[in-house]
Protein backbone atom coordinates (compact mmCIF):
# COMPACT_ATOMS: atom_id res chain seq x y z
CA UNK A 1 0.00 0.00 0.00
CA UNK A 2 1.33 3.39 -0.96
CA UNK A 3 0.70 6.23 1.47
CA UNK A 4 -1.25 9.18 0.17
CA UNK A 5 0.25 12.30 1.70
CA UNK A 6 -0.71 15.96 1.22
CA UNK A 7 1.53 18.11 -0.93
CA UNK A 8 0.34 21.56 0.15
CA UNK A 9 -1.70 23.28 2.85
CA UNK A 10 -4.88 23.11 0.76
CA UNK A 11 -4.85 19.38 1.38
CA UNK A 12 -4.56 19.57 5.17
CA UNK A 13 -7.66 20.24 7.25
CA UNK A 14 -7.74 22.54 10.26
CA UNK A 15 -8.35 19.47 12.44
CA UNK A 16 -5.28 17.69 11.07
CA UNK A 17 -3.18 20.81 11.54
CA UNK A 18 -4.30 21.11 15.17
CA UNK A 19 -3.29 17.47 15.70
CA UNK A 20 0.08 18.03 14.02
CA UNK A 21 0.85 20.95 16.29
CA UNK A 22 0.28 18.79 19.33
CA UNK A 23 2.93 16.31 18.23
CA UNK A 24 6.11 17.30 20.08
CA UNK A 25 9.35 15.34 19.42
CA UNK A 26 10.27 15.80 23.10
CA UNK A 27 7.34 13.55 24.05
CA UNK A 28 8.65 10.57 22.12
CA UNK A 29 11.40 8.29 23.37
CA UNK A 30 12.07 7.21 19.79
CA UNK A 31 12.32 9.75 17.00
CA UNK A 32 10.96 7.17 14.62
CA UNK A 33 7.71 7.09 16.61
CA UNK A 34 7.50 10.87 16.29
CA UNK A 35 7.86 10.56 12.52
CA UNK A 36 5.24 7.81 12.44
CA UNK A 37 2.77 9.91 14.40
CA UNK A 38 3.07 12.82 11.98
CA UNK A 39 2.78 10.58 8.95
CA UNK A 40 -0.26 8.88 10.48
CA UNK A 41 -2.03 12.22 11.01
CA UNK A 42 -1.38 13.35 7.46
CA UNK A 43 -2.25 10.02 5.89
CA UNK A 44 -5.34 9.73 8.11
CA UNK A 45 -4.26 6.26 9.26
CA UNK A 46 -3.08 4.72 12.52
CA UNK A 47 0.71 4.63 13.16
CA UNK A 48 0.55 0.81 12.90
CA UNK A 49 -1.10 1.00 9.48
CA UNK A 50 1.55 3.47 8.34
CA UNK A 51 4.34 1.29 9.72
CA UNK A 52 3.04 -1.73 7.84
CA UNK A 53 3.72 0.07 4.53
CA UNK A 54 7.47 0.33 5.23
CA UNK A 55 9.85 -2.22 3.81
CA UNK A 56 13.14 -0.39 4.37
CA UNK A 57 14.39 2.25 6.79
CA UNK A 58 14.90 4.54 3.87
CA UNK A 59 11.14 4.44 3.17
CA UNK A 60 10.60 6.31 6.46
CA UNK A 61 13.22 8.93 5.73
CA UNK A 62 11.90 9.47 2.21
CA UNK A 63 8.34 9.96 3.44
CA UNK A 64 9.43 12.17 6.32
CA UNK A 65 11.26 14.42 3.89
CA UNK A 66 8.09 14.60 1.80
CA UNK A 67 6.22 16.15 4.72
CA UNK A 68 9.05 18.31 6.10
CA UNK A 69 7.28 21.41 4.77
CA UNK A 70 4.50 20.86 7.34
CA UNK A 71 6.92 21.80 10.12
CA UNK A 72 6.54 25.41 9.00
CA UNK A 73 3.40 27.44 9.55
CA UNK A 74 0.87 27.78 6.75
CA UNK A 75 0.91 31.12 4.97
CA UNK A 76 -1.67 33.65 6.09
CA UNK A 77 -4.35 33.14 3.44
CA UNK A 78 -8.07 33.28 3.94
CA UNK A 79 -11.31 33.74 2.03
CA UNK A 80 -14.30 35.87 2.97
CA UNK A 81 -16.73 33.17 1.98
CA UNK A 82 -16.63 29.52 2.96
CA UNK A 83 -19.66 27.76 1.49
CA UNK A 84 -22.73 29.35 3.21
CA UNK A 85 -20.63 31.25 5.74
CA UNK A 86 -19.44 34.82 5.37
CA UNK A 87 -16.66 36.47 7.34
CA UNK A 88 -18.12 38.95 9.80
CA UNK A 89 -16.30 42.31 9.85
CA UNK A 90 -14.28 42.57 13.07
CA UNK A 91 -15.77 46.00 13.69
CA UNK A 92 -19.21 44.37 13.91
CA UNK A 93 -18.25 41.90 16.65
CA UNK A 94 -20.40 41.88 19.76
CA UNK A 95 -19.05 41.88 23.29
CA UNK A 96 -20.07 38.25 23.77
CA UNK A 97 -18.32 37.16 20.56
CA UNK A 98 -15.21 39.06 21.55
CA UNK A 99 -15.08 37.51 25.02
CA UNK A 100 -15.41 34.00 23.58
CA UNK A 101 -12.70 34.76 21.05
CA UNK A 102 -10.47 35.90 23.90
CA UNK A 103 -10.93 32.51 25.50
CA UNK A 104 -10.30 30.50 22.33
CA UNK A 105 -7.23 32.50 21.32
CA UNK A 106 -5.64 32.48 24.78
CA UNK A 107 -3.46 29.41 24.27
CA UNK A 108 -2.29 27.64 21.13
CA UNK A 109 -5.15 29.00 19.05
CA UNK A 110 -4.74 26.39 16.34
CA UNK A 111 -6.28 23.89 18.75
CA UNK A 112 -9.42 26.05 18.66
CA UNK A 113 -9.22 27.10 15.02
CA UNK A 114 -12.60 25.50 14.27
CA UNK A 115 -14.33 27.35 17.10
CA UNK A 116 -12.69 30.65 16.18
CA UNK A 117 -13.84 30.21 12.61
CA UNK A 118 -17.33 29.29 13.83
CA UNK A 119 -17.56 32.69 15.55
CA UNK A 120 -16.05 34.72 12.72
CA UNK A 121 -17.81 33.03 9.80
CA UNK A 122 -21.58 33.08 9.95
CA UNK A 123 -24.58 32.66 7.76
CA UNK A 124 -26.20 35.83 6.54
CA UNK A 125 -29.16 36.96 4.51
CA UNK A 126 -30.49 40.10 2.94
CA UNK A 127 -33.28 41.73 4.93
CA UNK A 128 -36.53 43.22 3.74
CA UNK A 129 -34.85 46.58 3.13
CA UNK A 130 -31.75 45.21 1.46
CA UNK A 131 -29.74 45.26 4.70
CA UNK A 132 -27.39 42.41 5.57
CA UNK A 133 -28.52 40.32 8.53
CA UNK A 134 -25.99 38.05 10.20
CA UNK A 135 -27.02 34.87 11.96
CA UNK A 136 -27.33 35.67 15.69
CA UNK A 137 -24.46 34.32 17.79
CA UNK A 138 -26.79 32.71 20.31
CA UNK A 139 -28.34 30.62 17.50
CA UNK A 140 -24.97 29.00 16.75
CA UNK A 141 -23.94 25.73 18.39
CA UNK A 142 -20.22 26.48 18.48
CA UNK A 143 -19.15 22.88 19.01
CA UNK A 144 -21.26 21.57 16.15
CA UNK A 145 -20.32 24.42 13.80
CA UNK A 146 -16.61 24.07 14.60
CA UNK A 147 -16.69 20.47 13.32
CA UNK A 148 -17.57 21.81 9.88
CA UNK A 149 -14.62 24.23 9.95
CA UNK A 150 -12.23 21.61 11.27
CA UNK A 151 -12.90 19.64 8.09
CA UNK A 152 -12.01 22.63 5.91
CA UNK A 153 -8.48 23.11 4.56
CA UNK A 154 -6.46 25.15 7.05
CA UNK A 155 -5.38 27.41 4.19
CA UNK A 156 -8.96 28.66 3.76
CA UNK A 157 -9.13 30.55 7.05
CA UNK A 158 -5.80 30.34 8.86
CA UNK A 159 -4.92 33.86 7.71
CA UNK A 160 -8.09 35.30 9.21
CA UNK A 161 -7.08 34.13 12.68
CA UNK A 162 -3.76 35.98 12.37
CA UNK A 163 -5.56 39.04 11.02
CA UNK A 164 -8.02 38.93 13.89
CA UNK A 165 -5.25 38.65 16.47
CA UNK A 166 -3.59 41.74 15.05
CA UNK A 167 -6.91 43.59 15.18
CA UNK A 168 -7.50 42.37 18.74
CA UNK A 169 -4.06 43.54 19.92
CA UNK A 170 -4.52 47.00 18.43
CA UNK A 171 -8.04 47.21 19.82
CA UNK A 172 -7.00 46.31 23.37
CA UNK A 173 -4.03 48.66 23.19
CA UNK A 174 -6.41 51.45 22.29
CA UNK A 175 -8.72 50.64 25.21
CA UNK A 176 -6.05 49.53 27.68
CA UNK A 177 -6.94 52.37 30.07
CA UNK A 178 -10.27 50.63 30.77
CA UNK A 179 -8.39 47.73 32.37
CA UNK A 180 -5.94 49.77 34.41
CA UNK A 181 -6.35 50.32 38.13
CA UNK A 182 -6.98 54.06 38.65
CA UNK A 183 -5.63 53.89 42.18
CA UNK A 184 -2.28 52.42 41.18
CA UNK A 185 0.54 54.51 42.59
CA UNK A 186 3.62 54.20 40.38
CA UNK A 187 5.87 55.71 43.01
CA UNK A 188 4.96 53.18 45.68
CA UNK A 189 8.03 51.13 46.63
CA UNK A 190 7.64 47.43 45.86
CA UNK A 191 8.82 46.00 49.13
CA UNK A 192 6.87 47.53 52.03
CA UNK A 193 5.46 45.63 54.95
CA UNK A 194 1.77 44.97 54.40
CA UNK A 195 -1.01 45.08 56.93
CA UNK A 196 -3.81 42.52 56.93
CA UNK A 197 -6.07 45.07 55.22
CA UNK A 198 -3.50 45.67 52.50
CA UNK A 199 -3.18 41.93 51.94
CA UNK A 200 -6.96 41.69 51.66
CA UNK A 201 -7.07 44.61 49.21
CA UNK A 202 -4.36 42.98 47.08
CA UNK A 203 -6.26 39.70 47.09
CA UNK A 204 -9.44 41.47 45.93
CA UNK A 205 -7.54 43.33 43.22
CA UNK A 206 -6.16 40.06 41.85
CA UNK A 207 -9.64 38.56 41.96
CA UNK A 208 -11.05 41.51 40.00
CA UNK A 209 -8.30 41.20 37.37
CA UNK A 210 -9.02 37.49 37.09
CA UNK A 211 -12.70 38.13 36.52
CA UNK A 212 -12.26 41.32 34.45
CA UNK A 213 -14.66 40.39 31.63
CA UNK A 214 -17.28 39.16 34.04
CA UNK A 215 -16.68 42.27 36.14
CA UNK A 216 -17.19 44.48 33.08
CA UNK A 217 -20.47 42.77 32.16
CA UNK A 218 -21.61 42.86 35.78
CA UNK A 219 -20.91 46.59 35.83
CA UNK A 220 -22.83 47.22 32.61
CA UNK A 221 -25.74 45.06 33.81
CA UNK A 222 -25.63 47.09 36.99
CA UNK A 223 -25.84 43.85 38.90
CA UNK A 224 -28.96 42.67 37.06
CA UNK A 225 -27.92 39.32 35.59
CA UNK A 226 -31.14 38.97 33.59
CA UNK A 227 -29.64 41.60 31.30
CA UNK A 228 -26.52 39.49 30.69
CA UNK A 229 -27.58 38.23 27.25
CA UNK A 230 -28.68 41.65 26.07
CA UNK A 231 -25.35 43.15 27.15
CA UNK A 232 -23.27 40.48 25.41
CA UNK A 233 -25.29 41.15 22.22
CA UNK A 234 -24.18 44.78 22.21
CA UNK A 235 -21.57 45.89 19.71
CA UNK A 236 -18.07 45.61 21.19
CA UNK A 237 -17.05 49.05 19.96
CA UNK A 238 -20.21 50.60 21.39
CA UNK A 239 -19.58 49.01 24.81
CA UNK A 240 -15.98 50.17 24.96
CA UNK A 241 -16.88 53.65 23.77
CA UNK A 242 -19.46 53.93 26.54
CA UNK A 243 -17.10 52.67 29.21
CA UNK A 244 -14.37 55.05 28.08
CA UNK A 245 -16.84 57.93 28.17
CA UNK A 246 -17.98 56.99 31.71
CA UNK A 247 -14.39 56.81 32.86
CA UNK A 248 -13.47 60.17 31.36
CA UNK A 249 -16.54 61.97 32.60
CA UNK A 250 -16.22 60.33 36.01
CA UNK A 251 -19.72 58.91 35.77
CA UNK A 252 -20.41 56.83 38.88
CA UNK A 253 -22.49 53.56 38.72
Amino acid at each position, binding site marked *: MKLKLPTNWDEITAGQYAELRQVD*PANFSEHLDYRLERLAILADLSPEEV*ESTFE*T*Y*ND*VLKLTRQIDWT*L*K*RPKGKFTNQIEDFTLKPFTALTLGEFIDLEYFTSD*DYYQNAGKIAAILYRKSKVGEWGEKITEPYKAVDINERSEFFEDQPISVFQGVIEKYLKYRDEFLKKWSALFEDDNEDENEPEETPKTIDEHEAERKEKAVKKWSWEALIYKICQGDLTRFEAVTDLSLIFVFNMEAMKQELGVKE
Partner: protein
Amino acid sequence: MIEKHEMALKNRAEEMSIGTYEKISALMEAKVYFTGMKDGEYEFESASDKWVEIFKAAGAPENIEDLLTFEEFQELVVEWCGSKGELKPMAEQIEVNGKVYKASPLWQQGKIPYQDGKLIEKYARQNPKKYVGEMMAVIFKDEDLTKSEHEANAHIKHKANIFRKELTADYATPYLLMVGKKILQAGIKEAEETAKEVEQNEAETSN
Protein backbone atom coordinates in the same frame (compact mmCIF):
# COMPACT_ATOMS: atom_id res chain seq x y z
CA MET B 1 48.81 -6.79 14.05
CA ILE B 2 51.85 -4.70 14.93
CA GLU B 3 54.44 -6.78 16.70
CA LYS B 4 57.16 -4.57 18.05
CA HIS B 5 58.85 -3.56 21.28
CA GLU B 6 57.74 -6.85 22.90
CA MET B 7 54.12 -6.02 22.20
CA ALA B 8 51.39 -7.32 19.91
CA LEU B 9 48.95 -4.55 19.01
CA LYS B 10 45.74 -5.35 17.21
CA ASN B 11 44.99 -2.75 14.59
CA ARG B 12 42.70 -4.45 12.09
CA ALA B 13 39.05 -5.30 12.44
CA GLU B 14 39.65 -9.02 11.88
CA GLU B 15 42.10 -9.14 14.78
CA MET B 16 39.82 -7.76 17.47
CA SER B 17 36.49 -8.63 18.98
CA ILE B 18 33.49 -6.35 18.57
CA GLY B 19 33.84 -5.39 22.24
CA THR B 20 37.45 -4.29 21.72
CA TYR B 21 36.47 -2.47 18.54
CA GLU B 22 33.76 -0.52 20.41
CA LYS B 23 36.22 0.39 23.16
CA ILE B 24 38.87 1.58 20.71
CA SER B 25 36.32 3.52 18.63
CA ALA B 26 35.07 5.30 21.74
CA LEU B 27 38.64 6.16 22.73
CA MET B 28 39.42 7.46 19.22
CA GLU B 29 36.51 9.89 19.52
CA ALA B 30 37.43 11.04 23.02
CA LYS B 31 38.36 14.72 23.28
CA VAL B 32 41.82 15.89 24.30
CA TYR B 33 42.31 19.06 26.30
CA PHE B 34 42.80 22.22 24.31
CA THR B 35 43.30 25.77 25.65
CA GLY B 36 40.05 27.22 26.84
CA MET B 37 38.26 23.94 27.49
CA LYS B 38 36.44 23.53 30.79
CA ASP B 39 36.29 20.49 33.05
CA GLY B 40 33.96 17.92 31.60
CA GLU B 41 34.58 19.04 28.03
CA TYR B 42 37.54 16.73 27.56
CA GLU B 43 38.48 13.20 28.58
CA PHE B 44 42.24 13.33 28.26
CA GLU B 45 44.81 15.88 29.33
CA SER B 46 47.04 15.05 26.36
CA ALA B 47 47.04 13.12 23.10
CA SER B 48 49.68 10.80 24.55
CA ASP B 49 47.37 9.82 27.41
CA LYS B 50 44.67 9.02 24.89
CA TRP B 51 46.95 6.88 22.74
CA VAL B 52 48.27 5.00 25.77
CA GLU B 53 44.68 3.94 26.52
CA ILE B 54 44.04 3.02 22.88
CA PHE B 55 47.14 0.85 22.77
CA LYS B 56 46.19 -0.83 26.04
CA ALA B 57 42.77 -1.64 24.58
CA ALA B 58 44.56 -2.98 21.50
CA GLY B 59 46.62 -5.36 23.61
CA ALA B 60 49.54 -3.35 24.99
CA PRO B 61 50.69 -4.08 28.56
CA GLU B 62 49.85 -1.72 31.43
CA ASN B 63 53.42 -0.45 31.60
CA ILE B 64 53.60 0.52 27.89
CA GLU B 65 54.93 3.97 28.80
CA ASP B 66 57.97 2.34 30.38
CA LEU B 67 58.72 0.26 27.29
CA LEU B 68 59.03 3.05 24.73
CA THR B 69 60.80 6.31 24.18
CA PHE B 70 58.64 9.24 23.15
CA GLU B 71 59.88 8.99 19.53
CA GLU B 72 59.14 5.25 19.43
CA PHE B 73 55.68 5.98 20.83
CA GLN B 74 54.98 8.58 18.13
CA GLU B 75 56.16 6.21 15.38
CA LEU B 76 53.90 3.51 16.76
CA VAL B 77 50.90 5.86 16.59
CA VAL B 78 51.62 6.66 12.95
CA GLU B 79 52.10 3.00 12.06
CA TRP B 80 48.95 1.95 13.90
CA CYS B 81 46.83 4.57 12.11
CA GLY B 82 48.40 3.88 8.74
CA SER B 83 47.47 0.23 8.53
CA LYS B 84 44.71 -0.47 6.09
CA GLY B 85 42.62 -3.58 6.15
CA GLU B 86 40.29 -4.97 3.53
CA LEU B 87 36.60 -4.55 3.96
CA LYS B 88 34.98 -7.94 4.28
CA PRO B 89 31.81 -8.50 2.23
CA MET B 90 28.60 -8.49 4.23
CA ALA B 91 28.02 -11.87 5.78
CA GLU B 92 24.55 -13.26 5.10
CA GLN B 93 24.79 -15.48 8.15
CA ILE B 94 27.12 -16.09 11.09
CA GLU B 95 27.69 -18.99 13.42
CA VAL B 96 28.32 -18.30 17.08
CA ASN B 97 28.65 -21.05 19.72
CA GLY B 98 27.15 -23.58 17.30
CA LYS B 99 24.09 -21.48 16.49
CA VAL B 100 23.40 -19.95 13.09
CA TYR B 101 22.03 -16.42 12.82
CA LYS B 102 20.81 -14.94 9.54
CA ALA B 103 20.52 -11.41 8.20
CA SER B 104 17.68 -10.18 5.99
CA PRO B 105 18.57 -10.39 2.27
CA LEU B 106 17.66 -6.69 1.96
CA TRP B 107 21.02 -5.82 3.54
CA GLN B 108 22.87 -7.45 0.62
CA GLN B 109 20.74 -5.31 -1.72
CA GLY B 110 22.06 -2.18 -0.03
CA LYS B 111 18.81 -1.56 1.86
CA ILE B 112 18.17 -1.46 5.57
CA PRO B 113 15.04 -3.40 6.59
CA TYR B 114 12.67 -1.05 8.36
CA GLN B 115 12.40 -2.96 11.65
CA ASP B 116 16.18 -3.43 11.80
CA GLY B 117 16.73 0.27 11.15
CA LYS B 118 14.21 1.24 13.81
CA LEU B 119 15.92 -0.85 16.48
CA ILE B 120 19.46 0.11 15.45
CA GLU B 121 18.54 3.80 15.57
CA LYS B 122 17.16 3.29 19.08
CA TYR B 123 20.32 1.61 20.40
CA ALA B 124 22.64 4.03 18.60
CA ARG B 125 20.84 6.99 20.16
CA GLN B 126 20.82 5.35 23.61
CA ASN B 127 24.56 4.77 23.58
CA PRO B 128 26.41 6.27 20.62
CA LYS B 129 29.74 4.95 21.92
CA LYS B 130 28.69 1.36 22.39
CA TYR B 131 26.03 -0.01 20.11
CA VAL B 132 27.85 -2.22 17.59
CA GLY B 133 27.05 -5.36 19.61
CA GLU B 134 23.36 -4.43 19.65
CA MET B 135 23.49 -3.58 15.94
CA MET B 136 24.78 -7.04 15.12
CA ALA B 137 22.24 -8.62 17.47
CA VAL B 138 19.43 -6.82 15.62
CA ILE B 139 20.73 -7.74 12.16
CA PHE B 140 21.48 -11.40 12.79
CA LYS B 141 18.39 -13.28 13.83
CA ASP B 142 17.80 -16.65 15.34
CA GLU B 143 15.19 -18.02 12.92
CA ASP B 144 13.65 -20.17 15.64
CA LEU B 145 12.36 -17.07 17.41
CA THR B 146 9.26 -15.04 16.63
CA LYS B 147 9.52 -11.39 15.64
CA SER B 148 8.59 -10.12 19.12
CA GLU B 149 10.98 -12.58 20.81
CA HIS B 150 13.79 -11.39 18.56
CA GLU B 151 13.01 -7.71 19.22
CA ALA B 152 12.73 -8.07 23.01
CA ASN B 153 15.29 -5.78 24.64
CA ALA B 154 16.58 -8.46 27.00
CA HIS B 155 17.21 -10.85 24.11
CA ILE B 156 18.99 -8.18 22.05
CA LYS B 157 21.21 -7.20 25.00
CA HIS B 158 22.04 -10.81 25.82
CA LYS B 159 22.92 -11.63 22.20
CA ALA B 160 24.89 -8.37 21.89
CA ASN B 161 27.14 -9.37 24.79
CA ILE B 162 27.75 -12.79 23.23
CA PHE B 163 28.60 -11.22 19.88
CA ARG B 164 30.93 -8.73 21.58
CA LYS B 165 33.06 -11.58 22.89
CA GLU B 166 32.74 -14.14 20.13
CA LEU B 167 32.64 -12.17 16.87
CA THR B 168 35.50 -10.30 15.27
CA ALA B 169 34.83 -6.72 14.23
CA ASP B 170 35.35 -7.40 10.51
CA TYR B 171 31.86 -8.93 10.48
CA ALA B 172 30.47 -5.64 11.75
CA THR B 173 32.42 -3.10 9.68
CA PRO B 174 30.55 -3.49 6.35
CA TYR B 175 27.24 -3.13 8.19
CA LEU B 176 28.58 -0.18 10.16
CA LEU B 177 29.40 1.64 6.95
CA MET B 178 25.82 1.41 5.74
CA VAL B 179 24.33 2.16 9.14
CA GLY B 180 26.65 5.10 9.61
CA LYS B 181 25.56 6.69 6.37
CA LYS B 182 21.86 5.88 6.30
CA ILE B 183 20.88 5.88 9.95
CA LEU B 184 23.39 7.90 11.92
CA GLN B 185 23.98 10.59 9.37
CA ALA B 186 20.61 10.70 7.65
CA GLY B 187 18.22 9.53 10.37
CA ILE B 188 19.64 11.02 13.53
CA LYS B 189 20.78 14.21 11.83
CA GLU B 190 17.26 14.64 10.43
CA ALA B 191 15.89 14.18 13.94
CA GLU B 192 18.08 16.99 15.26
CA GLU B 193 17.09 19.30 12.42
CA THR B 194 13.40 18.54 12.99
CA ALA B 195 13.72 19.36 16.68
CA LYS B 196 15.33 22.71 15.79
CA GLU B 197 12.60 23.46 13.25
CA VAL B 198 9.84 22.68 15.75
CA GLU B 199 11.52 24.89 18.36
CA GLN B 200 11.77 27.75 15.89
CA ASN B 201 8.14 27.32 14.91
CA GLU B 202 7.05 27.47 18.56
CA ALA B 203 9.03 30.66 19.06
CA GLU B 204 7.38 32.26 16.02
CA THR B 205 3.89 31.27 17.19
CA SER B 206 4.41 32.67 20.68
CA ASN B 207 5.66 35.96 19.16
